[in-house]
Each structure stands twice: as C-alpha cells, then as structure tokens.
C-alpha cells in the first residue's frame, strides 16, 4: 500500500487553474486504473481526470465549484495494485501522512514528487524567488520540474506565460469573487427558477474573468465626457492611406488612425497614461504608450495590448492589430500580449454602436470609446451641411483626473481628428 497525492496537472493549455465540476466517485471508493475520477473545467474545456492506478480514493481535497490552481492536491489515493509510483513505505507505527498541518491555511501535500510531509519551504533558488515575487506568482502553487520538485526559473517563466495571473500593479488585477455583501442587495426577493423554463448556468472561464474585472472597474469613480467630432478629413485621409496600403497587400481600417490620434493626445497629456495603486497611494506615470484594444470574442471580452504603440507607424499598427485580433479570437495570445496596458481603446463603433460609456480597465486611469462614423447635419459657417461625424466618449478616474483635465484631453483628441494632418507632426 502506498499513498499518493494526485495533483491537478497542467492540462496542456498553459492555464493556471481549473474548476472542479463534479466528482465521479466518492471518497472511499475503489477505482480501477484510468477510471475517470473527477471532471474539471478550464476556460476552454471540460476534462475528465482518471485514476493513476488500481486503488482506493481516500480523500477528496475540494468540493464542486472550487477553483484549484495547477499543481495543488485534488485527491489522495491508496494504490493497491501495480502502476502506482512506489513511495517509501512508512513504518507500520507511523501511518504515512497524506497532508501535513496546514501552513498559511494551505495544506502541504506529500507526494512522490515532494517527499517529506513536513513544513519544508518550497524549494527554489533566490533568483527564482525574486522573479516569482516580481510577477506575483505563488511558488507554492507551481509544480517544480527540478530535482525533488525544485522550482526552477523556467517553471516560473512558464507560469508567467501560461496564464498565472499576475497581481502586478501594471497588469489587470484578478479581483476576488464578489461576495453577497459586496453585491448590491436586490430590492425584490430572488426569483426562483421554474423547472423546464429557465436555465441556471454558473459563470465559467473567460466569462468569469470578465465579470470579475468589471466588478473591479465598478469601484472606480468614473467621469465621462462625450463629443461628436467632425471626422470628414480623417475619413479622407483614411481612404488615401487605405488605397496605398492595399497596394502593399495590407487591409487598413480606421482604427490605426484612431490609435495614432490617441497616442498623440497621450503624449500631450501624460497624466492619462498612468496606473493608480490605491493601496500604496501611488500613481505611476508610464513613459511607454502600451495601448489596449478591447476585442470581442465568442467567449467574452479580451484586451490585447499594442506594445509601444506610440512608436509604430500606421501600417505597423494595422499589422499588429490584425495579429492581436486573430490571436484574441483564437484565444491563443500569450500573457504578455494581454497584460500591462497603460490606456485602453474600445472601438464599439465596429458593432454599429452610436455612443457608449466605456468602463476603465483598472488600474489604468482612462479609456477612450469610439462610436460609428455616420452622416449628420451640422452647422458649417452658419449653414446646415452634411458631414461625417465620429461620436466619442472618454472616461477617466475621477480620483486622479478632474473634469477640466478631461476636457483638455478630449479637446486635443478632437483637434487631431478634425485635422489629421497634425498627426504627421507627432514626435516619437
């Protein structure tokens, strides 16, 4: 008999966690090798995890609905037959400990990969620890690939690239799930679902991420300014550039020009290219312009980041937006493409929206939303004229930015859109 702790493996999607959907066996049940034991769900798929060998499931470490980080214990298992990893048999007087006393509320698993059920700290060299701390990665939640389960630099790098959520001030924070107290109390009694007519569906995967991020955004006091801006000249410039780009085999939308207008405005109003950390009561003004572009996908909203957008040419922006858009739709973007933005653009005009109220992507301090360009009758020199009009809304964090500053930023943005030649004067 030997005791094994079965841990949540990295199911090969580079994800940091999965949700327990259902236990297919009860604690104490005898199982055969490869018999499915538990169904887990990641952002992408449901997976059944099988028993590693013939034996008995002695303990289930989590209940349905629990979110479990990769590498942490799922169940303990007494192997009866062959096929289990041989572990040092414990002397009869001392039953092998499946888990040691919890440290920091976390049970320390004992397993063949990490013998010693004691409170030994996670094995990692100082340089590895430093990297993990910098990127907000919990070493205890990683599975080390080194000897005795030692975590090496590459393990941390893999976690960084594979969706271990950073809690770095410059990356999207992963808010705690909303508790009942934090949610708004409904004015009416909760509606009981009627069988056969309604569906109850738990929040899962990306949708849950989006829900948490939006809850966090709601704690930011927004002020929003709206404008309808004459975009006749911008469209004319766009047509010229588009024809030229097509000869180069590049499809050019209006969005790269809007990004260029935003980066130019950010240079003149650096307070808008910032992140706010209320815990430290510190504002970080970022020199580089890393502009996130909100992208809709079938599963939910993803915000890929245009790195150093201020230094890219308009065709360069177009290529990068195309690459990020495709990656977002396929859900194949690495973490570095979806974190660390300093300002966000929401191009809701592409869904036909006239005007909306964009929500700030905390800890950033501002967001610009662009609606659909349309014909409108506007007074030009005192006579009605039909012009192409671009509705826009810029929201800012009122803790940092007052209406006057917001107005100045939107004025700059309007001037650049009305007179797109000014974009040629942008320094980098």
């Amino acid at each position, binding site marked *: 008999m030997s005791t094994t702790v079965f841990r949540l493996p990295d199911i090969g999607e580079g994800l940091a966690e999965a949700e327990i959907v259902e236990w297919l066996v009860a604690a104490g049940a005898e199982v055969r090798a490869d018999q499915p034991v538990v169904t887990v769900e990641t952002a992408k798929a449901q997976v059944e995890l099988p028993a590693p060998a013939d034996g008995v499931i002695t303990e289930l470490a989590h209940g349905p609905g629990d979110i479990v980080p990769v590498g942490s214990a799922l169940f303990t298992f007494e192997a009866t037959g062959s096929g289990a990893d041989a572990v040092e048999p414990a002397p009869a007087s001392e039953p092998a400990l499946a888990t040691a006393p919890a440290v920091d509320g976390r049970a320390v698993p004992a397993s063949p990969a990490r013998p010693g059920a*004691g409170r030994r700290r996670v094995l990692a060299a100082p340089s590895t620890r430093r990297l993990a*701390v910098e990127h907000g990665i919990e070493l205890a939640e990683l599975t080390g690939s080194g000897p005795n389960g030692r975590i090496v630099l590459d393990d941390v790098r893999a976690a960084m690239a594979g969706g271990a959520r950073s809690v770095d001030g410059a990356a999207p924070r992963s808010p705690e799930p909303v508790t009942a107290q934090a949610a708004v109390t409904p004015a009416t009694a909760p509606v009981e679902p009627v069988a056969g007519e309604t569906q109850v569906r738990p929040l899962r995967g990306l949708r849950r991420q989006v829900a948490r991020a939006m809850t966090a955004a709601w704690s930011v006091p927004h002020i929003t300014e709206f404008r309808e801006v004459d975009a006749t000249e911008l469209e004319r410039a766009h047509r010229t550039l588009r024809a030229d780009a097509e000869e180069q085999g590049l499809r050019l939308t209006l969005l790269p020009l809007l990004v260029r207008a935003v980066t130019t405005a950010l240079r003149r109003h650096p307070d808008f290219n910032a992140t706010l950390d209320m815990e430290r009561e510190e504002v970080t003004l970022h020199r580089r312009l890393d502009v996130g572009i909100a992208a809709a996908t079938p599963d939910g909203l993803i915000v890929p980041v245009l790195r150093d957008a201020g230094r890219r040419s308009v065709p360069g922006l177009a290529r990068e937006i195309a690459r990020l858009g495709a990656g977002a739709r396929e859900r194949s973007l690495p973490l570095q493409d979806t974190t660390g933005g300093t300002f966000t653009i929401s191009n809701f005009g592409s869904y036909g929206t006239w005007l909306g109220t964009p929500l700030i992507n905390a800890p950033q301090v501002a967001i610009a939303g662009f609606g659909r360009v349309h014909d409108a009758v506007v007074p030009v020199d005192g006579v009605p004229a039909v012009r192409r009009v671009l509705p826009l809304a810029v929201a800012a964090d009122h803790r940092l930015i007052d209406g006057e500053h917001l107005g100045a930023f939107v004025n700059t943005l309007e001037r650049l859109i009305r007179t797109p030649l000014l974009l040629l004067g942008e320094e980098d």
Partner: protein
Amino acid sequence: MVVGEIAEAVDLLVVGGGPAGYAAALRGAQRGRDVLVIDRDGEDGVGGVCLRAGCIPSKALIEMADVAERAAGYASAGLSVGECSVDLGAFQAHKARIVGELTGGVRSLLAAAGVRVLAGDLRFTRPDQAVVRTPAGRAAFVEFRDVVIATGSRPAVLPHLVPDGVRVLDSTGALDLPELPATVAVVGAGYIGVELGTALAKLGSSVTLVEMAERILPEIDVALTRPVARRLDELGVTVLTAARAGEHRGTILHVRRGDRDVEVKADVVIVAVGRRPNTDELGLDRLGVTPGDDGLLHVAPDRTLRPHVAAVGDVTPGPALAHKGYAEAPVAVDALCGDRVTFQPAAIPAVVFADPEIATVGLSAAAARAEGLDPVVTTIPMAGNGRALTLRAPRGTVQLVSETGTGLVLGLHVVGPHASELVAEGTVAIEMGATVEDLADTVHVHPTVGEQVQEAARAAAGRGLHSASPARRPHHHLNKE
C-alpha cells in the same frame, strides 16, 4: 524648537548610518533617489556599532589574542617567542587604524554616490516630517517622501550594573580598554560574552563568565558548544552557570547561585546581556508606527511598515546581525521604489568567534523534527583533518543535517577552525535546494578544513570515503524525477 521653520525636502531619508542604514542609502542612490542619512554621530557614525564598536573591533582583539596564545603553543614544535606582554594602548591605535580604513571606505562610497550625511538626533513629528536636533543644538526640519528606519540596537543594561566606563563596561567599553585588567567578570555568556571573555583570557586576564542559563551559549545546540566549554576550561576561565550577577563593590562582584552567594574577584565587570532595539526615542507614534512589546518593528515581508516607511536591521525581528541588515536594506529600498520584492532568505547563518569558532545555518536535527521533517544527521570530527592538524586546532566537528529520502541539505553546523568561512557553503546549498549528493560530488580543495563538509555529505549519501561509519539511513534512493 523653532516653530514655523521651513522644512527641507528630502526624497529618501535614512535614519542611522550602520550597516543596514548605509546599505539602504547606497541602494537608494543606485535607484536614482536623492538620499539623506541622519546619524547621531554624523560622518563619524557611518559604519554603526558593527564597524566602530562591534564586529570589527572585537575581531581585531580576538585575532591578536589568538596569535599570542597560539605562538606560545608552538614551543613543543621548536618555536620559542619571548614572554607575552600586552600594551592595550597600542592596540587601541591599531584598532583605530582598521576601523578608520573601513569607515573611511564607506564614507567615500556614500560621497561618491552623492549621499549626504548629517549629524543629529531625529524625532518624527508628522507622517512625512521629522525634526533633527544638531550637535550645535539647532533644530532643523526635514520633510521626506520615503524613510528607512535603521537605528539599530544598544547594549541592554542591568539596573544594578550600569556601565560607568571605568569599572563597569558594556561591550563597547570592553573593546576600548586602555590596559589589560588583572581580573574580569563577564556577565552574560552569549556570543558577545564568550568572545570577549576568551580573548581577554588569552591575553592574560583572569576571567569569570557569569550566565543566568544552565549553560554557556544557551541559544546554540549543546553539542556544538561543548568544544568551546572545554577550551574555556583549558584557558583557565571560570564559568558560573545558573548564576545571577548582583552588585559590584570595590573589586568584588557578588553573584547569586541557587541559594549561595559567590564572591567573584573583578577589577572590571563587562555586561553583555543582549541588545535592545533603538525604537523608543524616535517619536514613531507621530509617524503612525507602533513597535511591538519587544520594541521591534514588525515589518511586512517587503520590510515596509506602511506606504513610504520601511525598517531594516536590528530594529526588525530576526537575528540582530549585520549581515541580516545588509540583506534587508536593498529589499526595503526597492519596495519603497514601488517594486514587488520580499525578504525571504531560506536561512541566515550565525557565527560565534569563540575558540573553536562555531558557525551554524539552517535547521538542527531537533528543529527539523519539530517542523515535521525526518532528518539524517552525519557528524564528521575535525580530528582526522590534515589542515586542522597543521593549524594545531584539530577540535570540533562538522554536522550535516539532511532529509531522509530526498537528501536535501537542511542545516550545516560547524565547530572548528575557519567555521565562519565554511558555513557559507551550507548557506548556498540550502538556498539552492542542493542535496548531499551535490555536495559530495563537488570537488573540495585539499588540504582544507572544508573537506570535512564534503566528507559529511559523502557519509550522508552512504559513501563515506574517510569515515568508517555510514549514515544511519543513507539516501540510497534519491529522487531522480
């Protein structure tokens, strides 16, 4: 106090110029911060207790005493040196040269980094402001963005044995002795008391150690302290354990032992009963910071106490050792600069410069068991080591604590010559998660005392070369995953 005086704006304020403080100042300068150090003694205070009145001067005294005693010991080998005579006045000048060279070096580093150092006693007046009373008695206000508190510690005082600088001394006074006292009582047999007592005995004083606990060096595993106890006995040092020092009258120190009074002859009494953090005179309440009941500042893992305030060195929990302060300082400054950092060493080594030296890092066997681990202990004596024999110091042991099954190095405890240098190997091994196999297969220089570490590792791995007895339970099945 001048009210309404214009405060000077300071970007990064460091309070205290000791190892932790000056290291923080240098790190701040590296990070492009504008740094001001306030030290009670200004430029003269740079280096702190460690460089000026602790680690360094005590090593100067210990080394000289060692040479005197060792030279005499070579008579049987055919070396005869003259009668040993000690002029502590000349030693003071020698000590001052060493200290001057080191503190001068630190002052140059600070100057080259553009760090300003001012003299004065600092008290916080607001969460972002402090008043500095200069030696001239003027009050100057500084308004700071960030502050690192590194005010260190001072010798603890016994109310009936208050240092007077002549007959009752603290550790600082003991190192400033102008002449060698005939009889000395050292109150407290922790590492400071044992180090000073040993040195003075070797130079010719008649020394008595008075310790409240049941044994000397009570904080260190008894197996490691035995060679030191034996050596003290050889040197003619009287050790009174389970004893309480009372009054010092004339040249007699009255000591209470159980229900008996003992009279200890002592021209000079040295009090070495631990150290107290300097956190009581700073106006920390105005800063919005409260020390614990132990007087220590219980910092977060990144050494901050609240935004813009960090503390390092002897004022924070953990061993009051210079190397801990050196290691904490850059972490604290990086945290104040907005980095995500943590002070998280796997182990902090500690050394007693006794005879023989004791150096220890990581877990003892008992501590490992208390942590729920299953330790293997391999002990290799110094006696068989060639280098130790040529040093005429074949005393002590190397004790390696590792984990059953994995062979992970959990602790290294060395008693013997150069133990203070050997322990670094164990510290690296623990930090890197090395196994006894790793140490066993690392080539060590012959002849060195460090070979005993390799031998202990070989024994733990079940393949001792020079040690007949294999480990109790050798690690035959090291995990190869």
